[in-house]
């Protein structure tokens, strides 16, 4: 037996590995217990809600649970281009009657109306007939229902009901991208003039990109100044950078509204120096300009701080070395200083971009119609239309987008190269 493979024993004869594990076990448990509250907290406040959001975004069990007999009967509906057989009608009638007794029929009507316009009217009509007991359960229900409204004779409505059969659906996700399941089950695009979500997604990306760019262009020199100034000045400057950070977001946004409005200070100043005519004041708010200006200012510290923390660690003698070796100040900066700040640039840009992509309150207040972002749309569906599953779907799409950006970033720069502080 060679000495390498021989098991090493401790003095009391226990194999060393076992003894080591035993010794470390206690510490491992201790370490786990220390992080356990945080882990628990994260599970409750982060992982669980995201899971819940996902379920909600794909959940389509409502109709499934409301129309069990219908869907059971629909399994025997073979030719989807013709009206379903009598059993489907019967199943639907029985399901609907039960719902009517439980006062649940309205919900179904609304839900089906979302699937296909016009359902609300014809289900209400059916409800009234049932209430007046005008339907003869022993005769052909297919004929009686078809007679109620011409839409019942249209196979597309029955197809729409069938589409709601599976308990899960991706239709909310398609809707988020201005697409939908067509009557035959294929994916189709909505008409061009109704594609609002795609515009919003693109605008969100565009604004996030440019806000990141502006933050970088403004933050880099500030961070450099912070890192190189003597302590007493750099502290003061740091407070200037952080002061807005400590002020309420709402207050800052409101102050931008005061500054940027047409009768605001900035416009007054432009008029005063004769840049613009008094009766031709430019609109700097309730459009993209307002969103850019306010968001850049608000997100600037998130760029400055990581850059500063990286720049602080770069020894000034490196720039000196670059110069003394013959590099012009620009070469010394570009070849020596700049590459060393890339981890900070990466962290700052990632942070600002991700924050900007989900920004809500500022675009909502100063963005107007052309300056709102996808998060405003999400909020709109959460608060106004109460279509939570659609809001969840868009939220998850946003989250996925952020993860994709993170992944691309990791491929390009490497997460190990990020330095947040």
């Amino acid at each position, binding site marked *: 037996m060679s000495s390498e493979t021989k098991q090493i024993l401790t003095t009391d004869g226990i194999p060393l590995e076992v003894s080591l594990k035993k010794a470390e076990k206690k510490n491992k448990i201790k370490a786990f217990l220390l992080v356990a509250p945080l882990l628990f907290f994260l599970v409750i406040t982060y992982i669980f809600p995201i899971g819940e959001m996902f379920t909600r975004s794909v959940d389509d069990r409502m109709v499934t649970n409301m129309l069990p007999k219908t869907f059971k009967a629909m399994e025997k509906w073979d030719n989807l281009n013709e009206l379903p057989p009598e059993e489907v009608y019967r199943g639907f009638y029985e399901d609907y009657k039960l719902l009517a007794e439980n006062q649940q029929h309205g919900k179904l009507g609304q839900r089906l109306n979302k699937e296909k316009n016009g359902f609300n009217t014809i289900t209400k009509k059916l409800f009234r007939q049932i209430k007046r007991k005008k339907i003869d359960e022993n005769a052909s229900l297919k004929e009686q229902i078809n007679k109620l409204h011409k839409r019942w004779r249209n196979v597309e409505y029955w197809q729409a009901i069938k589409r709601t059969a599976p308990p899960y659906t991706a239709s909310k996700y398609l809707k988020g991208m201005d697409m939908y399941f067509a009557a035959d089950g294929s994916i189709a695009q909505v008409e061009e003039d109704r594609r609002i979500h795609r515009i919003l997604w693109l605008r969100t990306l565009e604004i996030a990109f440019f806000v990141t760019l502006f933050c970088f262009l403004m933050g880099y020199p500030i961070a450099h100044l912070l890192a190189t100034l003597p302590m007493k000045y750099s502290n003061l400057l740091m407070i200037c950078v952080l002061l807005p950070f400590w002020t309420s977001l709402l207050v800052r946004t409101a102050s931008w509204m005061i500054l940027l409005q047409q009768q605001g200070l900035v416009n007054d100043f432009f008029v005063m120096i004769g840049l613009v005519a008094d009766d031709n004041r430019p609109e700097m708010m309730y459009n993209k300009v307002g969103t850019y200006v306010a968001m850049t200012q608000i997100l600037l510290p998130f760029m400055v701080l990581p850059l500063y923390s990286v720049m602080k660690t770069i020894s000034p003698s490196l720039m*000196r070395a670059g110069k003394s*070796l013959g590099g*012009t100040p620009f070469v010394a900066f570009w070849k020596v200083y700049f590459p060393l700040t890339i981890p900070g640039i990466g962290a700052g840009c990632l942070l600002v971009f991700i924050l900007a992509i989900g920004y809500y309150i500022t675009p909502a207040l100063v963005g107007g119609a052309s300056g709102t972002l996808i998060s405003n749309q999400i909020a709109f569906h959460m608060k106004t239309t109460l279509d939570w599953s659609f809001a969840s779907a868009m939220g998850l799409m946003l989250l996925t987008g952020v993860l994709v950006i993170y992944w691309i970033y990791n491929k390009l720069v490497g997460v190990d190269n990020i330095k947040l502080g």
Partner: protein
Amino acid sequence: MSKNPEFVKFDKVDKSYDGKVLVVKDLQLDIAEGEFITMLGPSGSGKTTCLMMLAGFETPTHGEILLDGNIISNIPPHKRGIGMVFQNYALFPHMTVYENLAFPLRVRKVEKDEIDKKVDKALSMVSLSGFETRMPAQLSGGQQQRVAVARALVFDPAVVLMDEPLGALDKNLRESMQYEIKHIHESIGVTVVYVTHDQSEALTMSNRIAVFNDGKVQQLSNPAELYEKPVNSFVAEFIGENNTFNGEVVDIDKEKCKVKLANSEILANPISVKSKGDKTTVSLRPERALINPSDKMDNMFTGKIEEVIYHGDHTRVRLNLLENSEFILKVPNSTSNLELKVSQDINIGWNSTDARALDPK
């Protein structure tokens, strides 16, 4: 080729950072071509400021710096062609050893083949051939230091500045690097201006040493002279060890002076004292005082041993001699060793030429 004795010239240079305190006062210093000159001094003595002015990172408040006869005060650092080794090496952490060395050549638009050749040569000079693809972080302190030296030399600068380059190394490595830098200097004959606060480093490496204190050069001379013949008590104190006696001159002629201490009188070599009544500090190197001297010496006294400290190659003995309880003797640990015991009385003698009467402290 005759060497220019004023290759680098500081001409009446003053430097102040805040307009109140002069960090460098009226500096007059000539450095010969090919010389290894060390600026030695305690921290805050202005030596690094001088180096930075020569490199171009600081501008003199007054006066001119000349390089090979040309005023360089208004030339930016990157046009001076002066190599520099920084205190913390300042290797570019994101570049390999090769790229670090190639940097000064690339910015000078040297051909690729030529760069390869020069980098090769420079690396073999510091015995680091084969390390081209390493990153600085993968090198030990000593290796990083060599790369920094190689990088400062690779573009054949006329002058190389070194700002305490060995400060971060441990003692053994520091000593071997001292010899290595000295040998590199001897083999390529570049002018080196070296800054350190370590006197033994200065003594081993330099042709000449400029001792800085309080923004002024206190003494500029070769290492032996600096040690043997310090011109003032700061230099005597700063370089090597030193026994001192404070007193007053009572008699003086050309070669000797008599200095009155508290209760006794000693003979000394008048260096900065001029006349009777001058206050003086007499400085004597520990190794110049002998125990039980066989020859007749003109200073002979008896002292009492206070402490004996074993130092390996020698033993340090602290005596109380002439009311000075800090009098140090260095006794080599040879085979014919003396019995040295605490509170024993011994006879001490030294020649008056070795006891230098300097300015009072």
